[in-house]
């Protein structure tokens, strides 16, 4: 009994409940006529799609900048990378690589400025980050219209200027990772090896980074900035490094997302990209100042699992499409829960 209690305390009661709920959904699937292998496959694909975006939150949490509600900035860097790559005429693997490289350059620049800004608002990072995310999306909404893109697959059919709201990457690099070394079992089950592999490699790199001298310094800055300063650490620089990493990972994350999703979503597309990622890492058990890779994996799996399973099961049972309602309740509820828990941890 005691060990069970300790397990509950360590793993967190909400996470236990969510895990049990997810199991219940999987168990219920065959009985309500939902195809189980397809559901599991969908879940895996979604983990591959979203994993890196969740991972992108880790550096800023570790450096004490809080949850990166301004992840949209990284997403915008990714969108720029993707659109410019298409404009330049790259297709296939080269197009995908070019998109990533270009997006990383934008991510680095955006991240640097964003980091500078966050260093001026210490203590209020998360609120400012939210506004940075929203306002950058709005500025880009204007920019997408006036930037001199020419490629006919991307611009509005009428008028001839301005990018479309959604751009298909079919014929460029759709499913380039999902189909890389894909393992097909039966008709309905597909293991997206490439996407999962990229997620794993990025996670490994982050793990390595936080075992290096600089990663250790960033962790200390997040844990107690005054201690870090007294130990001769340049706090502002460490925070900028973490914000740049987060933004660049966000840029990479959205490109991986697009290749699986099949479309580049411009304009208000990036607006709510941060929230699912934040919800996932919080479900995974991360705090506002501490996050581990375990948090990322568990969080991504649980959150995407619920997001895939809940709507299909509920729709099958109720015959009503509630998917979006449930998605919003779960993700925002999770954020709310974690932010209230923050005060308890800080004490």
């Amino acid at each position, binding site marked *: 009994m005691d060990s069970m209690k300790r397990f509950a305390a360590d793993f967190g009661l909400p996470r236990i409940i969510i895990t049990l709920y997810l199991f219940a959904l999987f168990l219920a699937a065959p009985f309500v006529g939902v195809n189980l292998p397809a559901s599991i496959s969908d879940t895996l694909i979604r983990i591959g799609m979203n994993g890196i975006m969740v991972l992108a939150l880790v550096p800023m949490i570790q450096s004490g900048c809080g949850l990166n509600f301004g992840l949209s900035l990284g997403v915008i860097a990714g969108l720029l990378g993707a659109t410019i790559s298409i404009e330049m005429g790259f297709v296939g693997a080269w197009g995908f690589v070019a998109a990533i490289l270009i997006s990383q350059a934008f991510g680095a620049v955006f991240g640097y400025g964003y980091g500078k800004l966050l260093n001026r608002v210490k203590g209020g990072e998360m609120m400012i980050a939210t506004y940075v995310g929203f306002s950058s999306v709005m500025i880009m909404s204007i920019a997408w219209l006036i930037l001199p893109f020419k490629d006919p697959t991307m611009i509005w059919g009428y008028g001839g200027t301005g990018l479309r709201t959604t751009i298909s990457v079919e014929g460029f690099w759709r499913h380039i990772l999902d189909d890389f070394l894909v393992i097909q079992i039966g008709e309905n089950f597909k293991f997206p090896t490439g996407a999962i592999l990229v997620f794993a490699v990025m996670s490994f790199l982050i793990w390595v980074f936080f075992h*290096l001298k600089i990663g*250790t*310094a960033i962790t*200390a800055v997040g*844990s107690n900035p*005054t*201690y870090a*300063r*007294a*130990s001769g650490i340049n706090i502002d620089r460490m925070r900028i490094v973490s914000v740049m990493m987060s933004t660049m990972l966000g840029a990479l994350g959205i490109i991986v997302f697009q290749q699986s999703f099949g479309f580049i979503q411009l304009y208000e597309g990036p607006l709510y990209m941060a929230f699912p990622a934040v919800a996932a890492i919080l479900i995974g058990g991360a705090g506002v100042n501490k996050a581990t890779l375990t948090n990322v994996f568990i969080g991504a799996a649980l959150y995407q699992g619920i997001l895939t399973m809940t709507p299909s099961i509920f729709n099958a049972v109720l015959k009503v499409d509630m998917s979006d309602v449930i998605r919003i309740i779960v993700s925002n509820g999770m954020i709310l829960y974690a932010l209230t828990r923050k005060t308890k941890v800080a004490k």
Partner: protein
Amino acid sequence: MDSAEPILSLKGIGKSFYGNRVLADVSFDVGAGEIIGLVGENGAGKSTLMKILFGMPVISETGGFEGSIFFNGKEARFKTPFDALDAGIGMVHQEFSLIPGFTTTENILLNRESLNRSVLVDIFGPRISTLDRAAMESRAKSAIDKLGVTLDPNMLIKEMPVGHKQFTEIARELCRENVKLIVLDEPTAVLTESEAEVLLSTLRLLASEGIAIIFISHRLREVVELCDRVVVLRDGHKIEDFPAKGSSTKQIASLMVGRSMEAQAKIDAASAARTIQNGSDAGETVLSIENLWVDMPGETVRNVNLSIKKGEIFGIGGLAGQGKLGIPNGIMGLSPAGGSVVLNGMPVALNAPRAALERNMAFVSEDRRGVGLLLDEGIDWNIAFTAMQVQNKFLKPILGGLFLWRSDAAMSNLAEEYIKLLEIKCTGPGQRAGNLSGGNQQKVCLAKAFALRPDVLFVSEPTRGIDIGAKHLVLDTLKKYNREYGTTIVMVSSELEELRSVCDRIAIVYEGRIEGILPHTAPIEDFGILMAGADRDEAPVALVGGN
């Protein structure tokens, strides 16, 4: 002006916080129109006594107090400060509690404003009534007049000189109809000398009108000048209660810091032994500080000149707020500082913690939980982190030195070593520093500094808030470290006794300057006088080791 019936009479007041006794059997009376000077070192129990008198919630939350208070002839046990205010006790705090954007009048009459009656008030209640500005101004004026000073009732607080703010505070207390006793906590600490003079004469004027005053101050000269009687507290006991007339600052100072004969003998024995060890202390200068100023809130350093010799344990003492803590914080780059600090003949860059650390200086901060520790990380991280970042210890180069990989095993070994050496009570190197007790946290902070193998080690308030056993261990460790590695240690502490038992020479800081440097063997009265700001007219105290 002794009257037959005292206004306030304290009988056998005692208080302990979590088994730590801070007041024991304190009794004294305050008569109407009498000015009592309440003096004592930091931690002597002055502020606790005043908290009890005022019914501050912290007292009842920690189990109440012993003894009884009689105010105005009746037994009083105030549950909240409001009860005390209603009964007629006024309090002027050391820090101003005024609203900067409000005028003098508004501050004086805050929440006691004169109100206009109107129909609306009858309907909606008093919260909707408007202010009767004219009546307020005249009430404020009459309170100010009682002080015998001129204050513009319509001036904004933020535009006032400090002295006027202090007078506004006092006027606010006077403005209550029934005020019979005013407690002033360090009222002159922020005032210039001439402002202080005015304040003192104001207080005399108030006393002559029958208001009793309790005056808490570290400026002993003012106490002697102003007060009718002086009450000396030391270690929670009332030591003396005597008429101020005819006493000297020197006498009061020695009463404040004086220790029992036994403790004195112990210190003397300890220091005698040490003198033999450090027989040849005419060593070379390792650190010389010139014209150092440090802008540390509450601990401003104005102009400090010191030269510290190689291999000595140098003590820095002084009362709280005089600037002793600013010195190490300034040198280590944690607070904005200026002036010149020269280590081993080479100047040290100020305002750059890294530069100070790279010159092999280390600092154990007085703010353990705020500056000293990563509360959410393990003991191993806490001890090894600074050495890792500054000296590249506990790192393995990988890919030909392109990256530096943290060696968790090396950190853990280091932590194990110090856990054994300093007897840190914990479950292992991985235990979170936040879960350790105060004493063990302090040991972790020391270990962190030792891991740097510093040439000069600054230790600030090393025994603050830790139990006696840990205290001894910490002090012994410092002494041992000094002996074994020849590390120069600069120890800053509010506890004079502790400094005298550990240090070779002790500098006393007063108002941001070095008031004097004494050998540890100097009589305790001399330290007391320096701490209270030696009256410069009196015979100068013998100084050793020039500065």
